[in-house]
């Protein structure tokens, strides 16, 4: 990642922020995510309120209340490192992009004494006995790990939630309650869910591209430059369906229900490990062959197509793949994918079978060198044993980047994949 777009700040200048609290929303070419503060303190200054910024740019400053930060962050992009080292103990320039936010750690004693410490004992005891009001500015929010996780997942600000646990701790139930009463907060996490005014009849509706849409447009145009060829096979899907049905029967409580696509993901991973040429990236005129099959699954979301990655699919059971896929797809639909969910894919499966599409051609997902387009499983006539039989049948089309793969290599991969789909045990 080189740059991102600040969509909006979730805190205003002068607000207290706790380490780990969402600070601003960042739109990148892969995902929209909340960037968390890496230090406790007060958001003293917002240097860049919105728009595109390069990684490493100072976008805001966190420090102690009342500190003078007038000199910080103005020479934007010039030397954020210098800004950080100029103020080692106090201000912490907050830089764009996850993982690069810098902040000086300060012990909490450095700030004003906590409220409770100044209260007479009786009053403090009363405070502990009643649901404690949301944490005051600068105070650390007491919350259970579970409460923190739920708040993170739903985009809720823990500091705004009253805790009913011991010593005013915010517990899971408090967050659940706040989530129910605060649909607005939930909507914040999914900007796409904002209602749009319908276009007046007769007028052309012009839709601005979202960052995801823009990325799809750019990357697929790039992909179009690759010289590609397609290979198609039609397979007997009886065993594939039967295997999946058996797995569903044997499913234990709490396990994710495997789909045909989960089984296919596992079988494809096995075939990829036998045909490493197909499990590759084409980057700067070189072919990078990957040691593991990280299979991307194309998922349609309200924001557009995303391809979260099931890592190490060659080393996972179908059951594990189902669990990973369930999590990825649900987060993809909620717009909660992280960058790590989308990186390092080595191959992509696009399945439009659920729409009744029998066969289609997928466009490469660069830098990957191949993508598999999977159609629906349908009862179709097929020639077998010199006669005509009717049975579950599926058509798969492999698109290959000819710069990296020759026809024979693609064909050998597809031949083995067909073998595995028709006899899954052979993928062992």
């Amino acid at each position: 990642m080189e740059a991102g777009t600040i969509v909006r700040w979730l805190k205003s200048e002068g607000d207290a922020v706790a380490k780990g609290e969402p600070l601003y929303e960042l739109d990148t070419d892969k995902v929209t995510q909340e960037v968390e503060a890496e230090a406790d303190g007060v958001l003293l200054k917002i240097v860049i309120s919105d728009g595109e910024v390069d990684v490493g740019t100072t976008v805001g400053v966190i420090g102690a209340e009342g500190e003078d930060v007038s000199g910080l962050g103005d020479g934007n992009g010039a030397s954020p490192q210098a800004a950080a080292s100029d103020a080692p103990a106090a201000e912490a320039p907050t830089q764009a992009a996850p993982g690069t936010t810098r902040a000086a750690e300060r012990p909490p004693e450095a700030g004003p004494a906590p409220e409770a410490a100044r209260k007479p004992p009786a009053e403090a005891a009363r405070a502990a006995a009643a649901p404690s009001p949301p944490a005051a500015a600068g105070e650390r929010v007491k919350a259970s790990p579970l409460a923190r996780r739920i708040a993170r997942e739903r985009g809720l600000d823990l500091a705004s939630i009253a805790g009913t646990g011991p010593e005013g701790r915010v517990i899971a139930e408090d967050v659940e309650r706040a989530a129910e009463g605060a649909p607005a907060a939930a909507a914040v996490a999914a900007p796409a869910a904002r209602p749009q005014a319908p276009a007046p009849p007769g007028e052309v509706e012009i839709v601005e591209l979202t960052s995801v849409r823009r990325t799809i447009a750019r990357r697929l145009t790039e992909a179009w430059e690759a010289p590609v060829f397609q290979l198609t096979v039609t397979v007997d899907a009886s065993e594939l369906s039967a295997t999946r049905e058996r797995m569903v029967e044997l499913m234990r409580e709490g396990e994710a229900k495997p789909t045909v696509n989960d089984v296919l993901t596992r079988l494809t991973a096995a075939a990829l490990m036998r045909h490493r040429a197909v499990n590759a990236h084409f980057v700067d005129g070189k072919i990078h062959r990957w040691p593991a099959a990280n299979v991307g699954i194309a998922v349609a979301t309200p924001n557009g197509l995303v391809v979260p990655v099931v890592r190490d699919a060659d080393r996972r059971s179908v059951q594990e793949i189902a669990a990973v896929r369930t999590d990825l797809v649900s987060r993809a639909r909620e717009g909660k994918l992280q960058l790590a969910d989308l990186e390092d894919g080595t191959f992509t499966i696009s399945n439009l079978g659920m729409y009744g599409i029998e066969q289609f051609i997928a466009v490469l997902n660069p830098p990957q060198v191949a993508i598999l387009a999977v159609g629906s499983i349908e009862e179709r006539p097929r020639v077998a044993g010199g006669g005509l039989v009717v049975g579950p049948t599926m058509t798969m089309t492999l698109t290959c980047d000819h710069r990296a793969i020759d026809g024979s290599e693609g064909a050998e991969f597809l031949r083995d994949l067909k073998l595995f789909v028709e006899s899954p045990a052979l993928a062992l």
Partner: protein
Amino acid sequence: MPEVTYREAVRDALSRALREDDGVFLMGEDIAEMGGSMAVTQGLLEEFGAKRIRNTPISEMAIVGTAIGAAMQGMRPIVEIMYEDFLTLSMEQLVNQAAKHRTMSGGQLKVPLTIRTQGGAGWSPGAQHAQQLEAWFVHVPGLKVVFASTPEDVRGLLWTAIHDDNPVVFFEHRTLYPVKGEVPDELEPIPLGKARIHREGTDVTVIATGRLVHEALQAAEEAEKDGISVEVVDPRTLLPLDEEAIVASVRKTTRCVTAHEAVTRAGFGAELAAIVQHGAFDWLDAPIERVGARFAPLPFAPVMEQWVVPHAADVLDAVRRTVARA
């Protein structure tokens, strides 16, 4: 299924093992004519003779050392250490010898040795005769550690321990000997490293061992009256430990209490808490509570002894703290 006592269940596993394999024999203080200080081995001398039911001098180091030698020579000795407090006298043999030979010989030697012992408060035998020292042994790679809490478990686990090719320290709790429970007609071996969920619940998991399993079940009954649903899990084997079952349970209930009779400090509950916080961190909705004995030598005075060790009420208090509202 017949109802038998915990004591009878232990004896049944011993008898069956003795009958099935000539290499199995028993050693211990007063285990022959007297039938053991807890009457567990009563009747075995008559059936199996003095060569296989062997009284020993009062030297735990000698007993365990001899048994290690026999085990390395291909026998399956079962040692009874009268009180687990006396295990301390055999520490050198257990920790430096029994636990190490298999690894140090590159697998050429094995030590299929079972050390049965018993302890626990309840009879006020004083500070040197009622301790719970299981945590000491969980710290030693090369040993396996079992603590059974029911007649069915004690029989199935002891059978597996006897047939394991590694040294197993097998803890019994003296107040459990008269406890009755149903056991199947056929002895079903219970694998080491498999926890047992005694009671399912949704609000808090109590991970309990030994006597505290029963106290926890009693606390769970009480808690239910307040609308608190308690899951009671007995790891049964402390080493190897069924971490998966423990973590899965806490992820389900989001709260955790550990409970054993041994002192809380550096007790097995500390290890459980560490595993739970790591495996279920994002699922925890309350601090993990530990229930154990107060940090004091056990007093002779019965009322004081009872004050030092934990009971159902202590488990219940801990359960309530985890679901507490301010």
